[in-house]
């Protein structure tokens, strides 16, 4: 990289690519050429920077200038002003929402200040399709160290000592898992990477695979050495075409460099990786279900024991870890277990990646030390709630998790604290909700999801989630009874106690974690047939206030069903029989003349 004077890093994550970041790369290259600078400036398409809210992102090194919401046509001014004349393009700089001050470089952005990037260390820094760049940032050194200086036992010992726990949801100690698989003797063992990210609203695994695929390849080889496996499998969602392509590329170049395949680094250790495709089933995130799916069947879970470490893929000892878990491994071996365990809380070591989304100013992917509080994540890093609304709840752990509220904001985030609060870490999705979100509807949203994703094998989950979602639908339509609320609670508890796998056991969490905290809101739906958040369309009525309506016709033009009538400059009226309660008029009216009751 040294021969270039400057580097332009353009985000090539899925979010930014959707906003045409490839065209930005092409345009910048074009203008560099026009100015005869193509040998002085390197343009790279990297993995995700995490700051998806303001994508596409363009970062310029060495001065760390951070341009946001860049359009392809902005390439010209970036090249001519910044790269040629050294003058920053003011209008593309990020402005801190509270002070409206332009921030010149990423180091001074609140979004990055409290972050600590371990698993995401290379995302947004390197070209994921170039193995040399990964190697330049100490890539494959951990594998070399393991193979030449360590025994499988010492590798496992180091991972155990680090305190690393599985990042996919359960939080099981990774080192212990490796030890079980290591101790089971067999002619064939497997290392599996679970990249079946099914939690809606979580995209960290995809970002790691898109931004730094080699870290996973390297870690899988290390794991293979530790447990005595020479075959690795990555189970990935077919819906992630870019991640698949980059992973394939990574495997191919690792083979060419002799870092995968036979006799790796001349040590006699063989290891290779194959990709298996998922086909869209949330339950396949559960390791036994995942294994059945890899064998080509329905992804239904089976009872444990036997654990995959005893009898997994084709009945052989198999170690399954999540993408983010693997991404931590090379760093642990290089910097040492003591370094890793110095980060985090007593029982949750290291960092955690969260996908921050919903009603928050800075949507994106962040990584913070375990023990960071929700308040720091939501208000310091996340920049607070969108449009100055009031914070209501944050949902963590996806469909298996629960909602945390105002009173939990100062809780340090770790595996055990979240569990104690009735939620869970899950894969790290964090959806922020504001005063306009209706909690029974949110619970219903999640239950519809699990109802749909339940594999149908065990009755508590198959039938129970359906009943829960039916009752919640009743409530959101204003037809619920007080008895229904009681049933929700008892049924939830029963499902929790009796379902076969993690999916079913955690499915009622969205109900249980909202029904206590937001009891009044549930009761308002039942007793008063009222939705305090104004979300449940069946319980709503839109009306135009005569004294405020100026007759601008904006509402009648936006109404999709022609339910609003009225002449220009005179009061408009909504025909309640025609109104489908979509709320388009409410959003459109600039004079607060439309009310929702």
């Amino acid at each position: 990289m040294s021969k270039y004077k400057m580097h332009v890093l353009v985000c090539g994550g899925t979010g930014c690519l959707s906003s045409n970041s490839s065209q930005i790369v092409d345009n910048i290259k074009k203008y560099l050429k026009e100015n005869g600078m193509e040998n002085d400036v390197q343009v790279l398409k990297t993995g995700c920077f995490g700051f998806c809210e303001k994508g596409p992102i363009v970062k310029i090194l060495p001065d760390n200038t951070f341009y946001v919401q860049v359009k392809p046509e902005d390439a010209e001014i970036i090249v001519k002003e910044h790269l040629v004349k050294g003058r920053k393009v003011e209008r593309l700089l990020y402005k801190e929402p509270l002070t409206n001050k332009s921030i010149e470089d990423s180091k001074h952005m609140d979004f990055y200040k409290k972050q600590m990037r371990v698993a995401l260390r290379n995302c947004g820094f390197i070209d994921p399709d170039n193995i040399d760049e990964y190697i330049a940032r100490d890539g494959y050194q951990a594998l070399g160290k393991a193979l030449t200086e360590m025994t499988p036992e010492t590798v496992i010992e180091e991972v155990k000592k680090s305190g690393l726990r599985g990042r996919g949801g359960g939080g099981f100690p990774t080192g212990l898992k490796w030890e079980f698989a290591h101790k089971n003797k067999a002619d064939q063992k497997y290392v599996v990477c679970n990249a079946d990210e099914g939690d809606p609203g979580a995209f960290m695994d995809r970002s790691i695979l898109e931004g730094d695929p080699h870290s996973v390849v390297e870690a899988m080889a290390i794991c293979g050495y530790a447990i005595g496996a020479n075959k690795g499998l990555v189970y990935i969602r077919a819906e992630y075409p870019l991640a698949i392509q980059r992973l394939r590329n990574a495997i191919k170049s690792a083979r060419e460099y002799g870092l995968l395949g036979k006799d790796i680094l001349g040590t006699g250790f063989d290891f290779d990786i194959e990709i298996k495709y998922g086909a869209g089933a949330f339950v396949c995130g559960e390791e036994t279900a995942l294994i059945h799916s890899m064998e080509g069947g329905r992804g239904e879970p089976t009872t444990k024991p036997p654990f995959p470490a005893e009898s997994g893929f084709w009945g052989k000892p198999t170690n399954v870890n999540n993408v983010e878990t693997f991404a931590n491994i090379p760093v642990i071996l290089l910097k040492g277990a003591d370094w890793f365990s110095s980060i985090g809380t007593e029982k949750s070591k290291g960092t955690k990646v969260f996908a921050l989304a919903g009603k928050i100013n800075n949507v994106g992917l962040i990584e913070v030390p375990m023990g960071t509080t929700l308040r720091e994540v939501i208000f310091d890093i996340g920049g607070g709630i969108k449009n100055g609304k009031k914070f209501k709840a944050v949902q963590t752990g996806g469909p298996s998790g629960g909602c945390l509220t105002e009173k939990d904001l100062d809780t340090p985030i770790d595996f055990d604290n979240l569990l104690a609060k009735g939620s869970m870490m899950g894969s790290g999705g964090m959806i922020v909700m504001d005063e306009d979100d209706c909690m029974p509807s949110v619970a219903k949203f999640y239950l519809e999801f699990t109802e749909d994703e339940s594999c149908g094998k065990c009755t508590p989950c198959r039938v129970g989630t359906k009943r829960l979602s039916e009752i919640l639908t009743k409530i959101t339509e204003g037809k619920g009874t007080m008895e229904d609320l009681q049933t929700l609670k008892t049924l939830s508890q029963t499902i929790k106690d009796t379902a076969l796998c993690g999916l079913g056991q955690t499915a009622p969490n969205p109900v249980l974690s909202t029904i206590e905290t937001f009891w009044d809101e549930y009761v308002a739906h039942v007793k008063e047939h009222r939705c305090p958040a104004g979300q449940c369309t069946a319980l709503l009525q839109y009306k135009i206030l005569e004294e405020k309506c100026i007759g601008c016709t904006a509402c009648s033009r936006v109404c999709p069903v022609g339910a609003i009538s009225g002449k220009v400059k005179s009061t408009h009226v909504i025909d309640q029989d025609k109104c489908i309660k979509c709320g388009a008029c409410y959003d459109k009216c600039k004079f607060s003349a439309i009310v929702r009751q």
Partner: protein
Amino acid sequence: MANCVSCTNKLSEQGFQKLEQFIDELDEKNGALISVLHKAQEIFGYLPREVQQFVAKKLEIPVSKVYGVVSFYSFFTMIPKGEHPISVCMGTACYVRGAEKVLNEFKRELNIDIGETTKDGKFSLDALRCVGACGLAPVVLIGEKVYGRVTPDQVKSILKEFE
């Protein structure tokens, strides 16, 4: 992967030949069902009964097993997709930013439900689970094209682009 090569609802002889070749070239037939189905859907665009029967025969497994797998996974479809498949992201991030209203608007405009295709075969509608572009929520995909921050009143004009 998502390339819908033949969405015209025709099961060409050529397609079957291509699929047969893919299956014959497999190193190991055991456990290959899902990858074969991925290939089949890539070729035909969907997995009707004839294709499932063909796969079962070639892999020497019961059709019931093939059907069991096809119906289990949401990625596999037994109904041909429209010429312009519409996917509305219903991940949580999109949901809290109003994806449901957008989805309802598509349903109303096209007069079809989720998983259906319009009579003229032009559009099909699906709810999708998180495309990972949560910064653009709510997100709608039409074919390969991504629409971000979609509001219900944009639906009509978006559909017009495809007329």
